[in-house]
Protein backbone atom coordinates (compact mmCIF):
# COMPACT_ATOMS: atom_id res chain seq x y z
CA UNK A 1 0.00 0.00 0.00
CA UNK A 2 1.37 3.42 -0.89
CA UNK A 3 2.02 6.01 1.73
CA UNK A 4 -0.75 8.31 0.49
CA UNK A 5 -3.22 5.49 0.56
CA UNK A 6 -2.31 4.59 4.10
CA UNK A 7 -2.77 8.17 5.16
CA UNK A 8 -6.15 8.27 3.47
CA UNK A 9 -7.20 5.23 5.45
CA UNK A 10 -6.33 7.09 8.60
CA UNK A 11 -7.90 10.31 7.29
CA UNK A 12 -11.18 8.66 6.44
CA UNK A 13 -11.36 7.12 9.85
CA UNK A 14 -11.07 10.55 11.45
CA UNK A 15 -14.51 11.41 10.11
CA UNK A 16 -15.94 8.51 11.99
CA UNK A 17 -15.67 8.81 15.69
CA UNK A 18 -12.72 7.03 17.17
CA UNK A 19 -13.84 3.87 18.78
CA UNK A 20 -11.48 1.47 20.48
CA UNK A 21 -12.25 -2.17 20.73
CA UNK A 22 -10.47 -5.19 22.18
CA UNK A 23 -11.59 -8.65 21.14
CA UNK A 24 -10.55 -11.57 23.30
CA UNK A 25 -7.07 -10.16 23.85
CA UNK A 26 -4.44 -12.32 25.50
CA UNK A 27 -0.89 -11.20 26.23
CA UNK A 28 2.15 -13.16 27.30
CA UNK A 29 5.58 -12.06 28.42
CA UNK A 30 7.55 -15.20 27.67
CA UNK A 31 5.61 -17.80 29.67
CA UNK A 32 3.80 -15.37 31.94
CA UNK A 33 0.23 -14.64 30.90
CA UNK A 34 -0.36 -10.96 31.65
CA UNK A 35 -3.77 -10.53 29.99
CA UNK A 36 -6.13 -13.47 30.08
CA UNK A 37 -8.68 -12.78 27.40
CA UNK A 38 -10.22 -9.31 27.61
CA UNK A 39 -12.93 -7.92 25.36
CA UNK A 40 -14.18 -4.36 25.73
CA UNK A 41 -15.41 -1.35 23.79
CA UNK A 42 -14.17 2.10 24.68
CA UNK A 43 -16.48 4.96 23.84
CA UNK A 44 -15.29 7.92 21.78
CA UNK A 45 -15.00 11.38 23.30
CA UNK A 46 -15.19 10.04 26.79
CA UNK A 47 -12.62 9.58 29.50
CA UNK A 48 -12.22 5.94 30.38
CA UNK A 49 -10.26 5.05 33.50
CA UNK A 50 -8.44 1.75 34.03
CA UNK A 51 -8.06 0.91 37.70
CA UNK A 52 -6.72 -2.10 39.54
CA UNK A 53 -3.87 -3.18 41.78
CA UNK A 54 -0.25 -3.16 40.54
CA UNK A 55 0.53 -5.99 38.16
CA UNK A 56 -3.10 -6.46 37.09
CA UNK A 57 -2.22 -5.82 33.44
CA UNK A 58 -3.91 -2.43 33.01
CA UNK A 59 -0.77 -0.68 31.72
CA UNK A 60 0.04 -3.57 29.40
CA UNK A 61 -3.51 -3.43 28.11
CA UNK A 62 -3.37 0.34 27.58
CA UNK A 63 -0.15 0.04 25.62
CA UNK A 64 -1.75 -2.36 23.18
CA UNK A 65 -3.71 0.52 21.65
CA UNK A 66 -0.62 2.21 20.22
CA UNK A 67 1.46 -0.96 19.99
CA UNK A 68 4.03 0.25 22.52
CA UNK A 69 4.56 -3.32 23.65
CA UNK A 70 6.12 -4.19 20.29
CA UNK A 71 9.60 -3.47 21.60
CA UNK A 72 9.23 -5.37 24.85
CA UNK A 73 11.27 -8.57 24.94
CA UNK A 74 9.22 -11.74 25.08
CA UNK A 75 5.94 -9.94 24.28
CA UNK A 76 3.35 -12.00 22.45
CA UNK A 77 -0.33 -11.32 21.90
CA UNK A 78 -3.44 -12.97 20.60
CA UNK A 79 -6.83 -11.50 19.74
CA UNK A 80 -7.69 -8.21 18.06
CA UNK A 81 -7.29 -4.55 18.87
CA UNK A 82 -9.51 -2.52 16.57
CA UNK A 83 -9.67 1.20 16.08
CA UNK A 84 -12.84 1.96 14.17
CA UNK A 85 -13.11 -1.65 13.10
CA UNK A 86 -9.61 -1.71 11.68
CA UNK A 87 -7.26 -4.21 13.30
CA UNK A 88 -4.17 -2.21 14.23
CA UNK A 89 -1.99 -5.31 14.22
CA UNK A 90 -2.67 -5.93 10.52
CA UNK A 91 0.37 -5.94 8.28
CA UNK A 92 -0.78 -2.92 6.27
CA UNK A 93 -0.86 -0.67 9.35
CA UNK A 94 1.92 1.88 9.47
CA UNK A 95 2.76 1.86 13.15
CA UNK A 96 4.32 5.35 13.08
CA UNK A 97 1.11 6.82 11.63
CA UNK A 98 -0.90 4.88 14.16
CA UNK A 99 1.07 6.47 16.99
CA UNK A 100 0.46 9.92 15.59
CA UNK A 101 -3.25 9.21 15.84
CA UNK A 102 -2.98 7.55 19.23
CA UNK A 103 -0.83 9.79 21.44
CA UNK A 104 0.60 8.68 24.73
CA UNK A 105 1.51 10.35 28.02
CA UNK A 106 3.72 8.36 30.35
CA UNK A 107 3.97 7.83 34.07
CA UNK A 108 7.20 9.73 34.55
CA UNK A 109 7.46 13.01 32.65
CA UNK A 110 9.86 12.23 29.81
CA UNK A 111 10.63 15.39 27.85
CA UNK A 112 13.48 15.14 25.37
CA UNK A 113 16.71 16.77 26.56
CA UNK A 114 16.03 19.60 24.12
CA UNK A 115 14.50 23.06 24.36
CA UNK A 116 10.83 23.54 25.22
CA UNK A 117 10.18 24.62 21.64
CA UNK A 118 11.96 21.60 20.16
CA UNK A 119 9.99 19.27 22.42
CA UNK A 120 6.63 20.51 21.25
CA UNK A 121 7.70 20.81 17.62
CA UNK A 122 9.30 17.34 17.57
CA UNK A 123 6.28 15.37 16.36
CA UNK A 124 5.63 17.84 13.56
CA UNK A 125 9.24 18.01 12.52
CA UNK A 126 9.60 14.24 12.18
CA UNK A 127 6.60 14.35 9.88
CA UNK A 128 8.65 16.61 7.66
CA UNK A 129 6.87 19.88 8.48
CA UNK A 130 9.34 22.74 8.19
CA UNK A 131 7.26 25.89 7.83
CA UNK A 132 8.55 28.02 10.66
CA UNK A 133 5.43 30.11 11.08
CA UNK A 134 3.20 27.05 11.22
CA UNK A 135 5.47 25.37 13.77
CA UNK A 136 5.59 28.46 15.96
CA UNK A 137 1.81 28.79 15.92
CA UNK A 138 1.31 25.14 16.72
CA UNK A 139 3.84 25.26 19.57
CA UNK A 140 2.08 28.28 21.02
CA UNK A 141 -1.43 26.85 20.72
CA UNK A 142 -0.36 23.50 22.18
CA UNK A 143 1.34 25.14 25.13
CA UNK A 144 -1.72 27.34 25.69
CA UNK A 145 -4.00 24.33 25.78
CA UNK A 146 -2.01 22.80 28.62
CA UNK A 147 -1.85 26.19 30.38
CA UNK A 148 1.92 26.25 30.22
CA UNK A 149 2.31 29.10 27.74
CA UNK A 150 2.29 31.93 30.26
CA UNK A 151 4.91 30.18 32.35
CA UNK A 152 7.37 29.53 29.53
CA UNK A 153 6.64 31.99 26.70
CA UNK A 154 9.61 34.21 27.52
CA UNK A 155 12.12 31.43 27.25
CA UNK A 156 11.10 28.75 24.78
CA UNK A 157 14.76 27.91 24.20
CA UNK A 158 15.24 26.84 27.80
CA UNK A 159 16.06 23.16 28.23
CA UNK A 160 12.89 21.24 29.07
CA UNK A 161 14.72 19.36 31.83
CA UNK A 162 14.98 22.63 33.76
CA UNK A 163 11.19 22.72 34.24
CA UNK A 164 9.48 21.37 37.34
CA UNK A 165 7.97 17.88 37.25
CA UNK A 166 4.43 19.19 36.82
CA UNK A 167 5.51 21.57 34.06
CA UNK A 168 7.39 18.75 32.35
CA UNK A 169 4.31 16.56 32.35
CA UNK A 170 2.18 19.36 30.91
CA UNK A 171 4.89 19.86 28.31
CA UNK A 172 4.67 16.17 27.44
CA UNK A 173 0.91 16.50 27.00
CA UNK A 174 1.45 19.58 24.83
CA UNK A 175 3.95 17.61 22.76
CA UNK A 176 1.32 14.92 22.25
CA UNK A 177 -1.43 17.43 21.41
CA UNK A 178 0.76 19.22 18.88
CA UNK A 179 0.43 16.38 16.37
CA UNK A 180 -3.36 16.43 16.74
CA UNK A 181 -4.04 12.85 17.73
CA UNK A 182 -7.60 11.57 18.11
CA UNK A 183 -6.97 9.30 21.03
CA UNK A 184 -4.75 9.96 24.03
CA UNK A 185 -3.52 7.15 26.24
CA UNK A 186 -2.32 8.19 29.68
CA UNK A 187 -0.37 5.80 31.84
CA UNK A 188 -0.63 7.12 35.41
CA UNK A 189 0.17 10.64 34.24
CA UNK A 190 0.05 12.22 37.69
CA UNK A 191 1.61 9.54 39.87
CA UNK A 192 4.97 11.34 39.96
CA UNK A 193 3.48 14.77 40.62
CA UNK A 194 2.53 16.93 43.59
CA UNK A 195 -1.17 17.62 44.35
CA UNK A 196 -1.23 21.07 42.73
CA UNK A 197 0.26 19.81 39.47
CA UNK A 198 -2.08 16.83 39.64
CA UNK A 199 -5.09 19.13 39.93
CA UNK A 200 -3.92 21.12 36.91
CA UNK A 201 -3.55 18.00 34.81
CA UNK A 202 -6.91 16.62 35.88
CA UNK A 203 -8.54 19.86 34.89
CA UNK A 204 -6.80 19.64 31.58
CA UNK A 205 -7.97 16.09 30.95
CA UNK A 206 -11.50 17.18 31.72
CA UNK A 207 -11.26 19.93 29.09
CA UNK A 208 -9.68 17.68 26.48
CA UNK A 209 -12.42 15.11 26.32
CA UNK A 210 -14.58 17.22 24.00
CA UNK A 211 -12.10 16.64 21.23
CA UNK A 212 -10.34 13.45 22.23
CA UNK A 213 -10.98 9.95 23.33
CA UNK A 214 -8.95 9.56 26.50
CA UNK A 215 -7.98 6.37 28.26
CA UNK A 216 -6.20 6.82 31.57
CA UNK A 217 -4.58 4.29 33.84
CA UNK A 218 -4.61 5.43 37.44
CA UNK A 219 -3.87 4.16 40.91
CA UNK A 220 -5.74 7.02 42.40
CA UNK A 221 -9.38 6.10 42.99
CA UNK A 222 -10.47 9.69 43.63
CA UNK A 223 -8.87 10.67 40.38
CA UNK A 224 -10.78 8.02 38.48
CA UNK A 225 -14.06 9.12 40.06
CA UNK A 226 -13.35 12.81 39.44
CA UNK A 227 -12.37 12.78 35.81
CA UNK A 228 -13.66 9.65 34.08
CA UNK A 229 -17.00 8.83 32.48
CA UNK A 230 -16.43 5.10 32.46
CA UNK A 231 -14.25 2.93 34.64
CA UNK A 232 -12.82 -0.52 34.07
CA UNK A 233 -11.54 -2.58 36.98
CA UNK A 234 -8.77 -5.06 36.18
CA UNK A 235 -7.54 -7.81 38.41
CA UNK A 236 -4.88 -10.45 37.67
CA UNK A 237 -5.05 -9.98 33.92
CA UNK A 238 -8.81 -10.02 33.72
CA UNK A 239 -11.43 -7.36 33.24
CA UNK A 240 -13.63 -7.76 36.30
CA UNK A 241 -16.09 -4.96 35.79
CA UNK A 242 -16.60 -2.15 33.30
CA UNK A 243 -19.36 0.40 33.62
CA UNK A 244 -20.24 4.05 34.15
CA UNK A 245 -17.84 5.51 36.71
CA UNK A 246 -20.73 6.54 38.90
CA UNK A 247 -22.02 2.99 39.00
CA UNK A 248 -18.61 1.44 39.69
CA UNK A 249 -17.95 3.72 42.62
CA UNK A 250 -21.40 3.70 44.19
CA UNK A 251 -22.93 0.36 43.36
CA UNK A 252 -20.51 -2.13 41.80
CA UNK A 253 -21.88 -5.48 40.62
CA UNK A 254 -18.90 -7.57 41.70
CA UNK A 255 -17.63 -8.16 45.18
CA UNK A 256 -13.97 -7.87 44.03
CA UNK A 257 -14.60 -4.40 42.64
CA UNK A 258 -16.19 -3.29 45.84
CA UNK A 259 -13.33 -4.68 47.88
CA UNK A 260 -10.84 -2.80 45.77
CA UNK A 261 -12.54 0.58 45.66
CA UNK A 262 -13.23 0.51 49.36
CA UNK A 263 -9.55 -0.14 49.94
CA UNK A 264 -9.78 -3.64 51.30
CA UNK A 265 -6.92 -4.77 49.04
CA UNK A 266 -4.59 -3.46 46.36
Amino acid sequence: MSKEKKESVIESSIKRKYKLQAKDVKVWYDDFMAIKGISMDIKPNKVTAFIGPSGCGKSTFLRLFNRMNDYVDGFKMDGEINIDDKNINDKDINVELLRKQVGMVFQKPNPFPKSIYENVAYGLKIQGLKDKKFLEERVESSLKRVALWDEVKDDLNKNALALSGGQQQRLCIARTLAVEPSIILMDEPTSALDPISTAKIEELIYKLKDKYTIVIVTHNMQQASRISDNTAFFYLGELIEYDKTNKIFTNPEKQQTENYITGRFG
Partner: protein
Amino acid sequence: MRKIKELVIERALLFSALITIAVTIGIILVLSIEAFSFFSEVSIIDFLTDPEWTPLFTNKHFGILSLLSGTLLTSFIAIAFAVPVGLSISIYLSEYAPKSFRRTIKPLLELLAAVPTVVYGFFALMVVTPFLQSFIPGLSSFNSLSAGLVMGIMIIPYISSLSEDALHAVPNSLREAAYGMGSTRLQNSFKVMVPAASSGIIVSIILAISRAIGETMIVAIAAGQQPRLTFDPTVPVETITAYIVQVSLGDVQHDSLEYKTIFAAGITLFVFTFLLNTISYRIRKKFQEKYE
Protein backbone atom coordinates in the same frame (compact mmCIF):
# COMPACT_ATOMS: atom_id res chain seq x y z
CA MET B 1 43.22 -8.78 66.04
CA ARG B 2 40.53 -7.90 63.57
CA LYS B 3 41.41 -4.25 63.88
CA ILE B 4 45.05 -4.92 63.02
CA LYS B 5 44.02 -6.92 59.99
CA GLU B 6 41.84 -4.05 58.79
CA LEU B 7 44.71 -1.63 59.32
CA VAL B 8 47.16 -3.79 57.36
CA ILE B 9 44.77 -4.10 54.46
CA GLU B 10 44.06 -0.40 54.49
CA ARG B 11 47.77 0.42 54.43
CA ALA B 12 48.42 -2.08 51.65
CA LEU B 13 45.71 -0.49 49.52
CA LEU B 14 47.04 2.98 50.21
CA PHE B 15 50.54 1.80 49.30
CA SER B 16 49.46 0.43 45.94
CA ALA B 17 47.62 3.67 45.19
CA LEU B 18 50.75 5.63 46.06
CA ILE B 19 52.90 3.45 43.80
CA THR B 20 50.85 4.32 40.73
CA ILE B 21 51.02 8.00 41.58
CA ALA B 22 54.79 7.76 42.19
CA VAL B 23 55.32 6.01 38.86
CA THR B 24 53.33 8.67 37.03
CA ILE B 25 55.24 11.46 38.70
CA GLY B 26 58.51 9.65 37.95
CA ILE B 27 57.67 9.36 34.27
CA ILE B 28 56.74 13.02 34.03
CA LEU B 29 59.93 14.00 35.88
CA VAL B 30 62.25 11.94 33.65
CA LEU B 31 60.48 13.22 30.55
CA SER B 32 60.74 16.83 31.72
CA ILE B 33 64.35 16.69 32.85
CA GLU B 34 65.61 15.05 29.68
CA ALA B 35 63.44 17.28 27.52
CA PHE B 36 64.71 20.31 29.41
CA SER B 37 68.33 19.37 28.75
CA PHE B 38 67.38 18.82 25.09
CA PHE B 39 65.88 22.29 24.87
CA SER B 40 69.01 23.82 26.40
CA GLU B 41 70.82 22.69 23.25
CA VAL B 42 68.10 23.14 20.65
CA SER B 43 65.93 26.22 20.59
CA ILE B 44 62.25 25.54 21.17
CA ILE B 45 61.41 27.81 18.24
CA ASP B 46 63.46 25.65 15.86
CA PHE B 47 61.81 22.60 17.38
CA LEU B 48 58.34 23.93 16.65
CA THR B 49 58.97 25.56 13.25
CA ASP B 50 61.77 23.72 11.42
CA PRO B 51 60.17 21.64 8.67
CA GLU B 52 62.82 18.92 8.83
CA TRP B 53 63.63 16.24 11.38
CA THR B 54 67.08 14.75 10.79
CA PRO B 55 68.73 14.27 14.20
CA LEU B 56 70.54 11.11 13.07
CA PHE B 57 72.19 12.76 10.05
CA THR B 58 75.27 14.90 9.97
CA ASN B 59 73.21 17.92 8.98
CA LYS B 60 70.95 17.91 12.00
CA HIS B 61 67.48 19.43 12.01
CA PHE B 62 65.08 19.17 14.91
CA GLY B 63 61.68 20.16 13.56
CA ILE B 64 59.00 18.14 15.32
CA LEU B 65 56.40 19.24 12.77
CA SER B 66 57.38 16.54 10.30
CA LEU B 67 56.87 13.83 12.92
CA LEU B 68 53.74 15.50 14.22
CA SER B 69 52.26 15.65 10.73
CA GLY B 70 52.84 11.89 10.41
CA THR B 71 51.08 11.29 13.71
CA LEU B 72 48.19 13.61 12.90
CA LEU B 73 47.79 12.23 9.37
CA THR B 74 47.65 8.56 10.39
CA SER B 75 45.38 9.39 13.34
CA PHE B 76 43.10 11.46 11.14
CA ILE B 77 42.73 8.61 8.64
CA ALA B 78 42.07 6.16 11.46
CA ILE B 79 39.43 8.41 13.03
CA ALA B 80 37.80 9.26 9.72
CA PHE B 81 37.36 5.54 9.16
CA ALA B 82 36.54 4.43 12.69
CA VAL B 83 34.01 7.11 13.71
CA PRO B 84 31.35 6.42 11.07
CA VAL B 85 31.83 2.66 11.27
CA GLY B 86 32.02 2.53 15.07
CA LEU B 87 29.05 4.84 15.52
CA SER B 88 26.91 2.87 13.06
CA ILE B 89 27.75 -0.32 14.93
CA SER B 90 26.86 1.22 18.27
CA ILE B 91 23.54 2.58 17.00
CA TYR B 92 22.72 -0.73 15.39
CA LEU B 93 23.54 -2.70 18.54
CA SER B 94 21.73 -0.35 20.88
CA GLU B 95 18.62 0.56 18.89
CA TYR B 96 18.08 -2.17 16.31
CA ALA B 97 19.67 -5.47 17.26
CA PRO B 98 17.83 -8.02 19.41
CA LYS B 99 19.22 -8.29 22.94
CA SER B 100 20.68 -11.75 22.44
CA PHE B 101 22.53 -10.65 19.31
CA ARG B 102 24.02 -7.67 21.14
CA ARG B 103 25.18 -9.88 23.97
CA THR B 104 27.10 -12.10 21.55
CA ILE B 105 28.47 -9.55 19.16
CA LYS B 106 29.72 -6.94 21.63
CA PRO B 107 32.42 -9.10 23.26
CA LEU B 108 33.44 -10.32 19.81
CA LEU B 109 33.92 -6.74 18.66
CA GLU B 110 35.93 -5.95 21.75
CA LEU B 111 38.28 -8.76 20.72
CA LEU B 112 39.42 -6.46 17.90
CA ALA B 113 41.10 -4.32 20.52
CA ALA B 114 42.78 -7.38 22.02
CA VAL B 115 44.64 -8.40 18.84
CA PRO B 116 48.35 -7.59 19.33
CA THR B 117 49.14 -4.43 17.39
CA VAL B 118 52.16 -6.05 15.75
CA VAL B 119 49.71 -8.38 14.02
CA TYR B 120 47.76 -5.38 12.77
CA GLY B 121 51.01 -3.85 11.56
CA PHE B 122 51.85 -6.83 9.41
CA PHE B 123 48.25 -7.06 8.26
CA ALA B 124 48.53 -3.47 7.04
CA LEU B 125 51.87 -4.06 5.35
CA MET B 126 51.24 -7.48 3.78
CA VAL B 127 47.50 -7.40 3.04
CA VAL B 128 46.00 -3.91 3.03
CA THR B 129 48.80 -2.09 1.20
CA PRO B 130 49.01 -4.61 -1.71
CA PHE B 131 45.21 -4.57 -1.92
CA LEU B 132 45.09 -0.76 -2.04
CA GLN B 133 47.95 -0.70 -4.56
CA SER B 134 45.75 -2.61 -6.98
CA PHE B 135 43.61 0.49 -7.47
CA ILE B 136 45.84 3.33 -6.20
CA PRO B 137 48.82 2.96 -8.54
CA GLY B 138 51.09 5.57 -6.91
CA LEU B 139 50.86 4.06 -3.44
CA SER B 140 54.25 3.29 -1.91
CA SER B 141 54.85 0.10 0.07
CA PHE B 142 55.00 2.17 3.23
CA ASN B 143 52.23 4.74 3.50
CA SER B 144 49.99 6.44 6.01
CA LEU B 145 46.80 5.39 4.25
CA SER B 146 46.89 1.68 5.00
CA ALA B 147 48.50 2.21 8.41
CA GLY B 148 45.71 4.68 9.22
CA LEU B 149 42.95 2.41 7.97
CA VAL B 150 44.19 -0.58 9.94
CA MET B 151 44.61 1.59 13.00
CA GLY B 152 41.00 2.61 12.37
CA ILE B 153 39.95 -1.04 12.50
CA MET B 154 41.82 -1.42 15.75
CA ILE B 155 40.06 1.53 17.43
CA ILE B 156 36.55 0.68 16.17
CA PRO B 157 35.71 -1.21 19.36
CA TYR B 158 36.75 1.79 21.49
CA ILE B 159 34.13 3.87 19.72
CA SER B 160 31.45 1.22 19.17
CA SER B 161 31.62 -0.24 22.64
CA LEU B 162 31.78 3.00 24.63
CA SER B 163 29.20 4.71 22.43
CA GLU B 164 26.91 1.72 22.77
CA ASP B 165 27.27 1.98 26.54
CA ALA B 166 26.36 5.67 26.33
CA LEU B 167 23.33 5.00 24.11
CA HIS B 168 22.26 2.15 26.30
CA ALA B 169 22.46 4.38 29.37
CA VAL B 170 19.90 6.80 27.92
CA PRO B 171 16.76 6.25 30.01
CA ASN B 172 14.27 3.98 28.31
CA SER B 173 11.57 6.55 28.96
CA LEU B 174 13.11 8.73 26.25
CA ARG B 175 12.97 5.88 23.78
CA GLU B 176 9.30 5.38 24.67
CA ALA B 177 8.66 9.10 24.25
CA ALA B 178 10.24 9.04 20.80
CA TYR B 179 8.34 5.97 19.64
CA GLY B 180 5.15 7.22 21.29
CA MET B 181 5.37 10.36 19.15
CA GLY B 182 5.48 8.22 16.03
CA SER B 183 9.23 8.24 15.39
CA THR B 184 10.70 5.60 13.15
CA ARG B 185 13.71 3.72 14.49
CA LEU B 186 15.96 5.95 12.43
CA GLN B 187 14.38 9.14 13.78
CA ASN B 188 14.54 7.78 17.29
CA SER B 189 18.23 6.96 16.86
CA PHE B 190 19.43 10.18 15.29
CA LYS B 191 17.05 12.80 16.65
CA VAL B 192 16.74 11.58 20.22
CA MET B 193 19.23 8.87 21.22
CA VAL B 194 22.43 10.23 19.67
CA PRO B 195 21.87 13.79 20.94
CA ALA B 196 21.00 12.45 24.40
CA ALA B 197 24.14 10.29 24.47
CA SER B 198 26.32 12.87 22.75
CA SER B 199 28.68 13.50 25.65
CA GLY B 200 29.41 9.78 26.04
CA ILE B 201 29.89 9.44 22.29
CA ILE B 202 32.29 12.40 22.22
CA VAL B 203 34.27 10.89 25.09
CA SER B 204 34.55 7.60 23.21
CA ILE B 205 35.85 9.42 20.14
CA ILE B 206 38.38 11.39 22.18
CA LEU B 207 39.67 8.22 23.83
CA ALA B 208 39.96 6.63 20.39
CA ILE B 209 41.92 9.65 19.10
CA SER B 210 44.16 9.44 22.11
CA ARG B 211 44.71 5.74 21.42
CA ALA B 212 45.45 6.42 17.76
CA ILE B 213 47.98 9.14 18.56
CA GLY B 214 49.82 6.87 20.97
CA GLU B 215 49.70 3.79 18.74
CA THR B 216 53.19 2.61 17.82
CA MET B 217 53.59 -0.80 16.21
CA ILE B 218 51.16 -0.41 13.32
CA VAL B 219 52.65 2.86 12.16
CA ALA B 220 56.23 1.77 12.81
CA ILE B 221 55.71 -1.28 10.60
CA ALA B 222 53.39 -0.01 7.88
CA ALA B 223 53.79 3.75 7.59
CA GLY B 224 57.52 3.86 6.99
CA GLN B 225 60.29 5.68 8.82
CA GLN B 226 60.76 8.82 6.81
CA PRO B 227 59.97 12.01 8.71
CA ARG B 228 58.29 14.28 6.23
CA LEU B 229 56.05 17.31 6.56
CA THR B 230 53.22 16.21 4.30
CA PHE B 231 49.55 15.44 4.24
CA ASP B 232 49.80 13.09 1.28
CA PRO B 233 48.52 9.70 2.48
CA THR B 234 50.26 7.68 -0.25
CA VAL B 235 53.88 8.36 0.72
CA PRO B 236 55.97 7.02 3.64
CA VAL B 237 55.90 9.12 6.80
CA GLU B 238 57.15 8.72 10.33
CA THR B 239 55.09 9.29 13.43
CA ILE B 240 56.40 10.46 16.80
CA THR B 241 55.95 7.00 18.26
CA ALA B 242 57.64 5.26 15.34
CA TYR B 243 60.62 7.60 15.67
CA ILE B 244 60.94 6.79 19.36
CA VAL B 245 61.01 3.07 18.53
CA GLN B 246 63.54 3.61 15.79
CA VAL B 247 65.95 5.49 18.03
CA SER B 248 65.43 3.26 21.04
CA LEU B 249 66.26 0.19 18.99
CA GLY B 250 69.29 1.74 17.27
CA ASP B 251 72.76 2.21 18.68
CA VAL B 252 72.42 5.82 19.71
CA GLN B 253 74.78 6.74 22.46
CA HIS B 254 73.26 7.30 25.88
CA ASP B 255 73.08 10.96 26.93
CA SER B 256 73.85 12.19 23.44
CA LEU B 257 71.68 14.86 21.85
CA GLU B 258 70.22 12.19 19.55
CA TYR B 259 69.22 10.20 22.58
CA LYS B 260 67.53 13.21 24.15
CA THR B 261 65.38 13.73 21.07
CA ILE B 262 63.36 10.74 22.26
CA PHE B 263 62.28 12.70 25.29
CA ALA B 264 61.52 15.85 23.35
CA ALA B 265 59.34 13.78 21.03
CA GLY B 266 57.89 11.90 23.99
CA ILE B 267 56.87 15.03 25.83
CA THR B 268 55.15 16.36 22.72
CA LEU B 269 53.14 13.14 22.55
CA PHE B 270 52.43 13.34 26.25
CA VAL B 271 51.09 16.88 25.97
CA PHE B 272 48.65 15.77 23.28
CA THR B 273 47.31 12.69 25.02
CA PHE B 274 47.20 14.53 28.34
CA LEU B 275 45.09 17.29 26.80
CA LEU B 276 42.74 14.80 25.19
CA ASN B 277 42.31 12.85 28.40
CA THR B 278 41.63 16.04 30.33
CA ILE B 279 38.96 17.08 27.84
CA SER B 280 37.30 13.68 27.97
CA TYR B 281 37.42 13.71 31.79
CA ARG B 282 35.71 17.11 31.84
CA ILE B 283 33.00 15.96 29.43
CA ARG B 284 32.43 12.77 31.38
CA LYS B 285 32.02 14.74 34.60
CA LYS B 286 29.47 17.02 32.99
CA PHE B 287 27.65 13.98 31.61
CA GLN B 288 27.41 12.36 35.04
CA GLU B 289 25.99 15.51 36.56
CA LYS B 290 23.29 15.56 33.92
CA TYR B 291 21.90 12.10 34.55
CA GLU B 292 22.40 11.60 38.27
